[in-house]
């Protein structure tokens, strides 16, 4: 009798930093178990398979595909379609694939402005002929092609249907190990449909050792403006800790070294827009000035709230640092979905 064929595993990076791969490799011994349990069908960081090989697989040949990185250019999108077609289970792995992550801050600007900043209005660039990268370049010996730089950064689920989402920038190694363990031992995953795996269902605050008291915020502090008390909740100290609006799973690593949660594990269950959720959460802890509120008129109240809010800089880049691509803010834009023209 022939040996039972092992399930096929794939991992791919689109527009990413490589941190998801490092976090996966940092699983230690578990990586050997993955190697034992699966046949690697495609994993550019580790194994010598090519896109041509993937193109040759029957549809649904790959049992589990972890896709990290955002959709930044035409090549990323082509790979997303190819891997969706060839995979039974497609996981948006890490913050970039899940919700755009930091590269999606680019959605606050335009492709044209980005290219201008990098190649033209740049203090170290020596570009008298104003050369910009082009999709096709005629060189004396032939033609060279490069991918098209898109107007907007998209999450994976904005170009293909996604079965599961594994949040985090990057997902913590112990969470990756737990998910791989479940898959290897055939523990049933929850029903697919952009379902969150490898994370908690509560807020980061639940994992945070800091004491929470009921206290109202008179102003916000930026990270360099205050040395926080090491025991007390950072938000209560006026630091814009995103833990209250962020899914648990990391173990509250950043607050443990006196830094705020930046929100990399994404929105809580049932919340579409992490930024809006955070804004609602802090609205409830703002203390409207120091004087007694009784009898003050509406204009005065607005002024006092304004004073508190003035201490909050860059709300878009703070509340939406990791989920700009999927935010309601971006989806309201006319180019929010579908094919769009790119620039290169």
């Amino acid at each position, binding site marked *: 009798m022939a040996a039972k064929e092992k399930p096929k595993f794939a991992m*791919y*990076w689109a527009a*990413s*930093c*490589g*941190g*998801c*791969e*490092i*976090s996966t490799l*940092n699983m*230690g011994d578990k990586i050997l178990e993955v190697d034992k349990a699966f046949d690697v069908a495609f994993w*550019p*960081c*580790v194994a*010598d398979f*090519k*896109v041509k090989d993937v193109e040759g697989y029957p549809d649904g040949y790959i049992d589990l595909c972890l896709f990290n990185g955002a959709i*930044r*250019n035409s*090549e990323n999108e082509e790979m997303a379609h190819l891997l969706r077609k060839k995979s039974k289970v497609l996981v948006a792995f890490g913050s970039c694939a899940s919700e755009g992550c*930091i*590269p999606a*801050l*680019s959605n*606050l*600007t335009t492709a044209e402005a*980005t*290219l201008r*900043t*990098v190649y033209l209005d*740049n*203090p*170290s*660039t*020596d570009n008298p002929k104003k*050369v*910009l*990268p082009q999709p096709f370049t005629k*060189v004396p*010996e*032939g033609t*060279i092609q*490069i*991918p098209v730089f898109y107007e907007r950064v998209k999450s994976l689920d904005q170009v293909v249907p996604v079965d599961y989402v594994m949040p985090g*920038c990057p997902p*913590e*190694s112990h969470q990756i190990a737990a998910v791989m363990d479940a898959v290897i031992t055939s523990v049933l995953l929850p029903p697919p449909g952009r379902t969150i795996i490898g994370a908690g269902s509560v807020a980061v605050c639940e994992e945070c050792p800091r004491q929470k008291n009921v206290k109202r915020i008179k102003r916000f502090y*930026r*990270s360099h403006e205050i040395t926080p008390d090491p025991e007390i909740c950072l938000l209560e100290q006026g630091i814009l800790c995103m833990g209250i609006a962020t899914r648990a799973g990391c173990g509250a*690593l950043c607050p443990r*070294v*006196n*830094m705020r949660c*930046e929100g990399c594990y994404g929105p809580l269950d049932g919340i579409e827009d992490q930024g809006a959720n955070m804004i609602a959460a802090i609205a409830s802890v703002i203390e409207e000035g120091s004087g007694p509120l009784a009898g003050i008129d509406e204009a005065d109240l607005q002024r006092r709230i304004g004073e508190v809010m003035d201490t909050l*800089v*860059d709300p878009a*880049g*703070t509340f939406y*640092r990791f989920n700009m691509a999927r935010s309601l803010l971006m989806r309201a834009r006319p180019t929010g979905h579908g094919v769009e023209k790119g620039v290169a």
Partner: protein
Amino acid sequence: MKQITIDPVTRLEGHGKIEIFLNDKGKVANTYFVIPELRGFERFCVGRPAEEMPRITNRICGVCPEAHHMAATKALDALYHVEPTPAAKKIREMFYSAFYVADHTTHFYALGGPDFVVGPDAPPAERNILGVVHKVGLEIGKQVIDARIRNHHVIRTIGGRGVHPVAGLPGGWSKAITKEEREELEQIARQNVEFGLFSLKVFEDIVLGNQEYVDLITSDAYTHRTYYMGTVDANNRVNFYDGMVRVVDPDGKEFVKYHPKDYLQHIAEHTEPWTYLKFPFLKGVGWKGFVDGADSGVYVATPLSRLNAADGMATPRAQEAFEKMYETLGSKKVNGRYEPVHFRLATHWARLIELLYAAERMLELISDPEITDPNTRAPITATPDEGVGCVEAPRGTLTHHYWTDERGILTKVNLIVGTTNNYAPIAMSVKKAAQSLIKEGTVITDGLLNRIEMAFRAYDPCIGCATHTLPGQMPLEVTIYAADGSIIERLRR
């Protein structure tokens, strides 16, 4: 005219490709090393609060986030005109040294080293970390894994997270080191020094003990005479965390030594339409295209470059190893310093010397009781305006330059990252390797892929910094096009 596309599909998928054009006689007419990706940090960081840059720019590269975190943190020191406290400075450099040990270990044993340890002609399936373990034994393999684990533990303890640390602040560091942590870290540093010495011994036994490898290292195919860049301390010795940027010419004479804040007077970047990455060059010499020699502004910033640009190492065991390398490779002392080594494959040796230096430096810093001083944050009082932060990333000099309004909101950002420095040199090395292998009438075989890969890998190109992928790995695909554009042959591994 034939066109050969080397698409580094595996392990550099979508993040770099090489186009080789042959003339009618079958000789190499030209090569192009293409970087097909851009993310645009310089644009989307505008409008962000500057103090967030250590936690935003570490996402440039998940392989070396510590380098971007540190360059950004130092740029904030300059921006806010604040001197970090003595403890903060020591913590930062100690943290950075542990990162160097981890990163150089990964490269030597898993990425670049297998070419030598297992052999350049071994099958690709064996030229990896497992092949190294088979060749040198399981015990050594375990040491390598342990080295990575313990130094990642340091990074997480001191920086907050294993990937993408968070603790850098203008004038300081968010986390102090406790006495218990210091004791544990000192043990780790001692193990690192042992590991550094051990790794050099492995290199000597396996590589230097084999004349074939030595011939390969010193062969013309892997030699370029260029300028070399590196950061040096007050005594012109290698430093990763701080100092002056020194550039030496191909003969080893100091060409310029400048404070990192003055980089715009000395470095400019050339643009080509067929790639998203720019080509930095020395302004004082000028961009003359992809050529080496003293008349071309092309410079290199790698472990070997840092050693070439410096007069020596600041720690005793690393200094011994430094002298041994230059003596062995036949470099003479001129005006008290060794002539540069131009053999690109010697970069692997230089990397191990740096690993030992990083370990010794870590031990020095963690042994200093002052490192546990809880005062890790200097008060911020000045108005921010402009600041440059510079460190030696493992893959080259890394510069972050920020401009802000008076609230510290970024108005302009410029970044020249490690691997980018080496873009033109890598392109040149690829071309030379292709030229030395593809001759009239030569049938293209896998050997071409191996040798070009080696030319590339010596630089440990963290295309993560340039295009974002694991450094060093580059199995290849070659497509040969006829003059009419039809595909004649496709070679893959």
